[in-house]
């Protein structure tokens, strides 16, 4: 089984004078195509772990291997580029860019990666992705013109824009009602089975966790 991301003995502490260790040596492998749930109580360190896996935060110690490449020594902009190409994010709140419509929001990561304007190919891909998440009739709508569930769908399409190997989702259905929540969740599963994209989903919802392939639980900064 190909490993997408591998964490070894990851420790993270905050504070200069009084150090508070949030993660006490985490070992975790996510394999290709895996649909994995990360559960834990608030304050258990799951958000910190997700940030570190998403290269948004640096561990105090330990190694992160992404596709066999160790990445701690990369510069901050190199890390940004690696993150852009390999990791997609879906957050609890939609985090779309308010000034741009759905189509443009999905194209943003592609434009950022090239540093140029939208190309025809980008438009086609964004259309395809928005169609895949069932938003093909809302292409020119801005985030404040669509519902919460629709925004989350656009976010998912954006997370897929760069064809990432893994999608890290932080409570992706946490802000949605049951119907919407089910829709979004089955959308993630569909992407997983069709494109073999790995998922790590942080959730409170035991129902969500139980319908994942594997559940990892974090308690007080340690995996159990």
């Amino acid at each position: 089984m190909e490993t997408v991301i591998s964490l070894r003995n990851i420790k993270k502490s905050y504070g200069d004078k009084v150090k508070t260790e949030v993660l006490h040596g985490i070992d975790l492998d996510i394999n290709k195509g895996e649909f994995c749930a990360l559960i834990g109580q608030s304050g258990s360190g799951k958000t910190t772990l997700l940030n570190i896996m998403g290269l948004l935060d640096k561990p105090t110690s330990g190694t992160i291997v992404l596709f066999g490449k160790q990445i701690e020594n990369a510069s901050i902009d190199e890390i940004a580029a690696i993150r852009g190409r390999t990791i997609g994010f879906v957050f609890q709140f939609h985090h779309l860019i308010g000034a741009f419509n759905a189509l443009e929001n999905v194209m943003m990561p592609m434009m950022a990666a090239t540093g140029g304007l939208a190309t025809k190919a980008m438009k086609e891909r964004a259309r395809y992705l928005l169609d895949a998440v069932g938003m093909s009739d809302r292409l020119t709508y801005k985030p404040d013109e669509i519902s919460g569930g629709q925004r989350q769908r656009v976010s998912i399409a954006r997370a897929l824009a760069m064809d990432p190997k893994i999608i890290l989702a932080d409570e992706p259905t946490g802000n949605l009602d049951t119907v919407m929540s089910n829709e979004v969740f089955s959308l993630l599963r569909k992407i997983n089975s069709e494109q073999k994209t790995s998922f790590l989903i942080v959730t409170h919802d035991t129902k969500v966790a139980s319908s994942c392939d594997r559940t990892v639980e974090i308690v007080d900064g340690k995996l159990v």
Partner: protein
Amino acid sequence: MFEIMVAVRYLIDEKKQTAFIILACAVGVAVMVFLYGLISGLQASLIDRTLGSQPHIVSNAHKEKPRSIVRSDDKTTVIGSESRGFDRPQYILDWKQKISSIENIDGIVAAAPHLRGAALVKRGDIARSVMMNGVDAESFGRIIPVKKKIINSKIARTVEKRTSLQSLSWMETNSQLLVALRSQSSSSYMIQFFVMVAVALGIASVLIVSVVQKRREIAIMLAFGTARRQIVKIFLYQGAIVGFTGSVIGSVMGTALAEFFRSISRNPDGTPQFPIEIEPLTYMIMILIATLVGLVSAAMPAKQASKVDPATVIH
């Protein structure tokens, strides 16, 4: 291009904020253009009036130098000298030759002889002393209308060297006027400088607010792979775009203001008191300066934006 596109979209999205800073910048540039137009117009008209009635360079025969009564030597120090009782008339006897050699100097458009002397006018019992001026009507007429090309002191020195006549340019004979004009100009530069500082602070403060408002969006852009230097550019471009747009609008406003001012300040006969002269180059310089000021004032907000930490902002 990605950065410019995002910068433009952010500015369009924040319509009110953008309108305010562009307006602030426009007012600043309008003041600069107006002040520049007014002062340069005023100065040009003053110089014009001064030069309209006098030649740019006046060359005279050397005056006789005062002679000392006693020669200074090691033992004696001379503290007094004989002063001339009156202006002894000095003549340039070879004036035709001198004029033709002056006319050959680069930058000289026309030269004319001028004879000046004291005379007495008597009518009945009353006698008055007058100054007689003798000119050659044809060549002198060529000098007075010559206004556009202003001849400087350097040419006067050349004239002096070639003809061994004592030559003074109009800048030397009107040095006090020029000093006054120069200090007027420098005070107007000071005002313009502080106007620009105020504009810069305005742009900076609005952009700082915008960075704070957009922290989450900046964080999300960083998360999907936007480099920090791209974020920096997005805000720098916003500053430059505001400076550029504001200065274009401000140039129009300033010109209109200057024209309006000119139209209300007229001579009793209805002619404008002075022209307002703003060359295209001036507009270009003003726009360039304002764009740079916008860019510089965006530096701090841009730096602030690049320091957004996605790990703490997003969740």
